[in-house]
């Protein structure tokens, strides 16, 4: 991880190698660490060669969906008839996730370089980096680094002196979770209310300002320079599990655990080792009860299930959950699962953009039911009602916010039903 404590021997520091080194934030410091070589190399290749290299590496989107990055880039039109845009998703609003924040805080030039390479590969001249509004420190760091990059001619009208225009704008979010959804982000950049758009059309056909657009996560883009410099084969060999999940991933561990923080792991790493070895296991005298492995939107695992889960895209799906954004939220036996579920549902009810009926009304209703159960006034039929609502909130809306609210509720009720039933039979619990 590198910051605040030194990397664990089982980590594979690639993106996080220079975390904690203040010097790495400057242009000179970054170049001393091998920075901007990849961009220079990329600008000497054709667009297709860059895309092919990323395709060959097996790099997949680190924002949550895990879509193959090279494939996504290849959806952009070959002929540039309209402006192409690259959007870097630095909104990082998924509860439990704080990896992009650290990348921007410590290695801003890694992101700028990754963006520049990606922009070149998709034929874009303009990149928007959409930074979460609450990220004041990363914003300052990125602002300084981008100004420096412009001053050094790394980006701008004649990037790296190779005659290519690569412009970059920082765009600050205003605090809406939903603006981390790619189409809502495009609306937000356009100055509209951050509501997700109906797909199709997909962003690669009609995205930002109606032009072909690619949206990539910070961590994804930051990995691109390493792939170009070290080769796709090098990246592909970083794999402990399924060969479809390659490279390293930053896992943000938080909750009731001894050493919370970011850990960079080769994909395929056992979740058990992350929890007990790297992150130090439970707090003294406690046992783990539940783990959410990929940010608040994915189904909850019991501690037993977590023990056998492998941290890659396929391994998490096999365990009935998703790798998501890699925000590992740990709950020990002091946690009240009913309260935690309510807290999650309340978050989604607060953040629903209010477009789709199921989401607008369903997230709020779900929260009300859970609050009533917590108050000791739940009714026997409430659990079935919650499951039925969750069913109607899944797969029926424009974006997946309501699915994200339903998934933890369903898994919590399925896996921790006795805790819910205790509230229903004996009323309000006192600590």
């Amino acid at each position, binding site marked *: 991880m590198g910051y605040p404590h030194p990397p664990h021997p089982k980590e594979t520091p690639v993106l996080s190698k220079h975390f904690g080194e203040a010097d790495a934030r400057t242009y000179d410091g970054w170049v001393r660490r091998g920075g901007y070589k990849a961009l220079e190399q990329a600008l000497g290749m054709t667009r297709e060669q860059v895309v092919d290299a990323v395709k060959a590496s097996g790099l997949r989107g680190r924002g949550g969906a895990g879509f193959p990055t090279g494939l996504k880039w290849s959806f952009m039109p070959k002929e540039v008839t309209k402006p192409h845009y690259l959007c870097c998703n630095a909104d990082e609003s998924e509860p439990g996730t704080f990896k992009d924040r650290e990348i921007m805080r410590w290695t801003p030039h890694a992101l700028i370089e990754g963006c520049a390479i990606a922009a070149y590969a998709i034929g874009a001249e303009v990149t928007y980096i959409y930074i979460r509004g609450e990220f004041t420190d990363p914003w300052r760091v990125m602002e300084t680094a981008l100004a420096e990059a412009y001053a050094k001619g790394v980006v701008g009208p004649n990037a790296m002196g190779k005659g290519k225009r690569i412009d970059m704008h920082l765009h600050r979010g205003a605090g809406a979770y939903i603006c981390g959804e790619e189409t809502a982000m495009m609306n937000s950049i356009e100055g509209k209310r951050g509501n997700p758009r109906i797909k199709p059309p997909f962003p690669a056909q009609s995205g930002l300002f109606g032009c072909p657009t690619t949206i990539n996560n910070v961590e994804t883009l930051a990995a691109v320079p390493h792939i170009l410099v070290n080769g796709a084969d090098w990246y592909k060999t970083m794999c402990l599990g399924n060969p479809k999940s390659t490279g390293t991933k930053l896992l943000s561990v938080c909750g009731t655990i001894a050493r919370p923080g970011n850990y960079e792991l080769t994909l395929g790493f056992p979740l058990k080792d992350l929890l007990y070895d790297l992150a130090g296991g439970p707090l003294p005298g406690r046992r783990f009860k539940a783990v959410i492995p990929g940010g608040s939107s994915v189904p909850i695992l019991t501690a037993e299930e977590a023990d056998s889960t492998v941290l890659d895209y396929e391994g998490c799906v096999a365990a009935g959950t998703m790798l998501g954004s890699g925000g590992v939220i740990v709950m020990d036996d002091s946690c009240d699962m009913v309260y935690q579920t309510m807290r999650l549902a309340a978050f989604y009810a607060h953040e629903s953009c209010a477009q789709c*009926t199921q989401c607008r009304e369903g997230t709020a209703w779900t929260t009300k039911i859970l609050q009533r159960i917590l108050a000791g006034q739940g009714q026997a039929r409430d659990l079935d009602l919650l499951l039925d609502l969750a069913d109607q909130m899944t797969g029926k809306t424009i974006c997946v916010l309501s699915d994200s609210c339903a998934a933890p509720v369903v898994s919590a009720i399925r896996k921790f039903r006795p805790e819910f039933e205790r509230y229903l039979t004996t009323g309000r619990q006192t600590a």
Partner: protein
Amino acid sequence: MSDLVKLTVEGREVEVPKGTMVLEAAKLAGILVPHYCYHPSLPVAGVCRMCLVEIEKQPKLAASCATPVAEGMVVKVQTAPAREARQAVLEFLLINHPLDCPICDQAGECELQDYVFQEGRSATRYDEYAKRFNPVEEFGDDVLYVPNRCILCTRCVRFMEHVADEAVLNVSERGDRAYIGIDEGHRLNHPWAGNVVDLCPVGSLISKDFLHKARAWDLDKTPSVCTGCTQGCNVTLETRDNTVLRVRPRTNERINRHFICDEGRLGYPWMNRADRLEAPMVRQDGRLVATDWERAFAAAARLAGGGSARGAVALVSPCASNEALAAVAALLTRLGGTGAFRVREGAEAPLAGIPNLALRKERAPNVHGALAAGMSRDWAGVAGRAAGAGLVIALDESLEGVALGSAGVLYLGTVLSDPARAHAAVVLPCCNAAEEEGSFTNRDGVVQAYWQAKAAPGMARPAAWVLSEIAERAPAGATA
């Protein structure tokens, strides 16, 4: 015909142009998929999620308003998953809906009522929780917003933004706290703003003019044509107890799509005027005396015959029907004379998002019908000859400001104007546009029929009929 796509909706095969949405294709197959946010004249939002249908070989239910058709597509509306999904949407919509139908203007023509009745649950599972409450807001001079009834379909927001091109409405707040907001310092007073009341599928946006006036099911609806300007928007006159209570747009893709302007919408009270001419009158000893139609016709025929030597002048209203204007033209041909009209003017107010749709400068429905009947725009020239003419025929024209001299004046109208009271020899009561059948010719030359919506007062008759009766009695060959 390669740009046609064949698909099956509920077992019915239908062929539609490429790019058509499934919901529209289903309509063509005769199946209405329940929906709220979709409207054919607005951009697709796909937010109410009511129009979910099952499409074979697609893993998830599809919003039929936002799914383009594809060759060989098999669409199923009434399968269990689709019905359950729509039932759930209805339940979600109702949890914060006040169910104040007994005092809601929309009741009876409410899409929420209709679809809940059609496929909703019989009882809610949202018990013991408080409903969302927000106070009623006045959006504009005629539009009230009742946020509690709102289902956030955003039709009004999209109409103002994309059709009226004056984006003053928005969705404010998020989640279940959301409501329709109006930009600070702005009012919903666009000349076409009233359409949001029609677009609103529930009773959330309501017209102050119609507020608590009538229950929807008590209204009789008559197809008509707006008399407000030369555009010729198709409207429905809604009446109860022989009174026009509301005017609403009637769909015509070529002329006004689904919209009418506020001037046309709110300009109907003249149709209900109480100070109407109810009996024919003939001047005797300097006074107008009520009489029956036979005597009045005889007097009118004498007037026409007597005046023909010095020629006739017709001063007509561009609000008269084509039929009445043609009858005047025929009389003028026989008697020898000319006709003219004058028209009230106002500011033109286009509806930005619809080509060739505006509240037109000339505020009368039949300017082009009058021109076609040979009436002149040279009002000053023709009216100037009135004093010297043997006969002046006034068709629904007040004669205000016209020097009449000693001419014999034959006045056909709905109300008795002051000049007519002073000068007319014969006064004949006529129907207004809500009381007769007829046609208008709009600015593009489209002839459109309108129908009788209410009974005429007293003995008033359609002007075209009255004129034809006079023509029958006027001396043949009276031509000068």
